[in-house]
């Protein structure tokens, strides 16, 4: 019986719609009452039938409702969107019921039965989540072991760095040509100085805080921020090198890029923590955090180079030819003609690289830096707070999800914006 495209006489159509909607509403009501109020109206049916009862009812209802044109706007859009064939109707019901079934337990665990008051584990008496744990540990998750009374230093350093990042928007027309210089050279130096003097301290009357105490989400930002601003210039050089027509330079660049892209980040981190100190001169001490930042920068520069190479390749040949015909040399051509256009093309790609970088930073946990995953591991094994791994990981996942989702949406917008301009 082919229900999908049956023609119905107009006097039967109303009857079909009434029967169909009644059946559909009954099936949804059954699942709804079952999951929210634990009332089982189909419980009297034998055995497994009661589980499939709403599915069968809803399926019949949807197939009765399926008509080519009913004249009701809502019903027509319903048919067009979720009820085109038997298979579609089945999937629709399945997903609807799955959401209805899963929603109440999740809601009661996260909100209704959860605890947030109090300061100790004993405050958590409900069967739901223990958000007290997150509340007590919140500062640790954000700032690591950084002394509590000095948190303003991290906050103000971040605000300053972000503020300086937006300075470019307010450049006057005649200063615009220095924009690239500012972002590629001056800004990284200023940012480094701010973070060094403000977060690390040690001078200007600020107390020295060693990098071992840094941690939590702020460390994620510090590491990914520095890696991004350092890997960008390096990636640019490598991309140019890979497209160079001088064989030695090209092969060295290709070798570098393929090497770093071929190894997992975790081995690079191991290298930075156990192998790299062997390569340094004797008595030369380099902080672990600095080593890790260097390692991630070298690693990420290879990916960055591939993104920039994509931009260079996307430029039409005419741009190169035109620049050469004006008598420009290699560097002049690239600085004034090629790179400005290519870099504009790769901004979305760079945003994606940064997103990947932020998602990769929790890995520094494996070499003993107490980034947010490290703080979670610490909190989880604290004897006073055993048994709250679930809450901790869900909290971290939510934070990361918000950051990464916002960034991916932003990079998507950038992509759309630059697509139309060309």
């Amino acid at each position, binding site marked *: 019986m082919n229900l999908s495209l049956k023609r119905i006489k107009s006097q039967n159509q109303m009857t079909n719609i009434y029967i169909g909607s009644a059946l559909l509403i009954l099936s949804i009501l059954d699942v709804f009452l079952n999951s929210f109020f634990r009332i089982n109206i189909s419980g009297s049916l034998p055995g497994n039938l009661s589980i499939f009862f709403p599915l069968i009812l809803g399926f019949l209802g949807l197939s009765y409702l399926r008509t080519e044109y009913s004249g009701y706007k809502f019903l027509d859009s319903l048919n067009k*969107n*979720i009820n*085109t064939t038997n298979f*579609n109707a089945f*999937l*629709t019901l399945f*997903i*609807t019921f799955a959401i209805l079934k899963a929603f109440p337990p999740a809601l009661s665990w996260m909100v209704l039965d959860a605890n947030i008051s109090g300061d100790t584990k004993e405050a958590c008496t409900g069967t739901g989540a223990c958000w007290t744990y997150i509340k007590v540990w919140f500062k640790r998750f954000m700032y690591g072991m950084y002394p509590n009374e000095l948190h303003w230093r991290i906050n103000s350093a971040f605000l300053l760095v972000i503020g300086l990042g937006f300075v470019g928007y307010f450049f006057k027309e005649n200063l615009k040509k220095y924009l690239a210089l500012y972002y590629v050279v001056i800004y990284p130096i200023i940012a480094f100085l701010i973070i060094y003097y403000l977060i690390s301290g040690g001078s200007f009357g600020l107390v020295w805080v060693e990098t071992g105490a840094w941690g939590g989400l702020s460390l994620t930002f510090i590491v990914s921020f520095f890696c991004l601003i350092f890997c960008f210039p390096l990636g640019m050089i490598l991309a140019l090198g890979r497209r160079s027509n*001088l*064989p*030695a*330079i090209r092969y*060295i660049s290709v070798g570098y890029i*393929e*090497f770093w*892209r*071929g*190894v*997992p*980040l*975790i*081995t*690079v981190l*191991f*290298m930075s923590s*156990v*192998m790299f*100190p*062997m*390569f*340094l*001169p*004797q008595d030369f001490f380099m902080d672990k955090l600095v080593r890790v930042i260097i390692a991630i920068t070298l690693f990420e520069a290879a990916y960055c180079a591939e993104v920039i190479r994509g931009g260079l390749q996307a430029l039409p040949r005419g741009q190169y030819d035109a620049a050469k015909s004006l008598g420009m040399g290699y560097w002049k051509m690239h600085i004034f003609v090629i790179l400005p256009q290519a870099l504009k093309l790769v901004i979305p790609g760079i945003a994606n690289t940064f997103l990947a970088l*932020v*998602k*990769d*930073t*929790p*890995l520094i*946990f*494996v070499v003993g830096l107490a980034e947010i*995953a490290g703080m*979670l*591991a610490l909190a*989880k094994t604290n004897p006073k707070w055993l048994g709250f*791994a*679930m809450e901790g*990981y*869900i909290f*971290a*996942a939510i934070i*990361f*999800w918000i950051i*990464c*989702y916002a960034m*991916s949406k932003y990079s998507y917008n950038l992509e759309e914006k630059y697509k139309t301009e060309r």
Partner: protein
Amino acid sequence: MNNKIKRILPQLLTILFVVLVFGFFTINAQVNMDNRGIDFGFGFLSQEASFDMQFTLLDYDGQDSYLWAYVVALLNTLLVSFLGIIFCTILGVIIGVARLSQNFLIKNSAAWYVEFFRNIPLLLQIFFWYYAALRALPLPENAQPWFGVTYMTIKGYYIPSMIWENLNVFMSCLIAAIVAIIFIRVYARKIQEKEGKQLPVLYISLALITILPLLSFLIGGVTLDFEMPVLKQLAQTSFIFEGGIALPPELIALVLALSLYTSTFVAECVRAGIQGISKGQKEAAASVGLTPNQILKLVIMPQALRIIIPPTTNQYLNLTKNSSLAAAIAYPDLVLVFAGTALMQTGKAIEIVGITMLTYLSISLAIAALMNWYNKRIEIKEK
């Protein structure tokens, strides 16, 4: 003359720079190793490893050499990657197709699935499954069977193991069936090109691949037994399952997280591939009289696969590299066993980290070479 200098000078400077950097590091390494009394060499590979691994595919114990430990650990890495690739492909194809569905609910659920799993760091996902979700499973004594014979417990997933007799007969039957199918396909194509007749290749192949192995059971003396996992009491409150195959929770968490995370990227590749084919192709195929099945098989899929396969291979490569996160939850993979335990015991940092990186590098380069070859083969040859 001037031009020649312009070409040679930058290259010389670059090479000089690279050589200087390498030389600087080598000299430092030499001095450092001399001071600490470590010598460079790979002799340690034949020494006794004297550490244990929780989960191995091949026989291994502490008396074996470091080289054998390396092989066993590499196999563990490959096992995780293999399982992850299979599951992420299945999930990814389903989700990718679902994202193109006309059904509003399915399309959006698939889109949210992708957004959800793609935007959470993989390490956190692994931790979530391992430390939070799998710890909520029942103890062995309370476990309810899944599908009647398998048990999901806090100590791992227990499945029946297969005990074969005359496995080689069965295998040779299987291989014979596959070879026969290949021959029949070649023959069918010839017939079609010569006479325009079509053989029912699919039915013949299905028949062959079921009948031949079945015959091996009936005539070849092949038997298959299942060893069920059985609950055993060790002490008053301590129970374990014995028999069958035990998949440790580390493996399960790792495969779950890797395949859920990578499936979102595979789904995007699949979606892009199917969207990349213009509607005109389908209409043109229909207008020359191909059936819907033929359109899918002869027109849509070959073109879609050309777009889908290269980025998907890249994702498989990423999954293999990401499987090194196993070290964070103590699954005995290459990084944990070799760059972790073996390094601690021998102190040969340079050699061991070097071997580990080279291993991953050669896997990557091998897959990249394979992909380039494939790309060349399926490339549209324009005149």
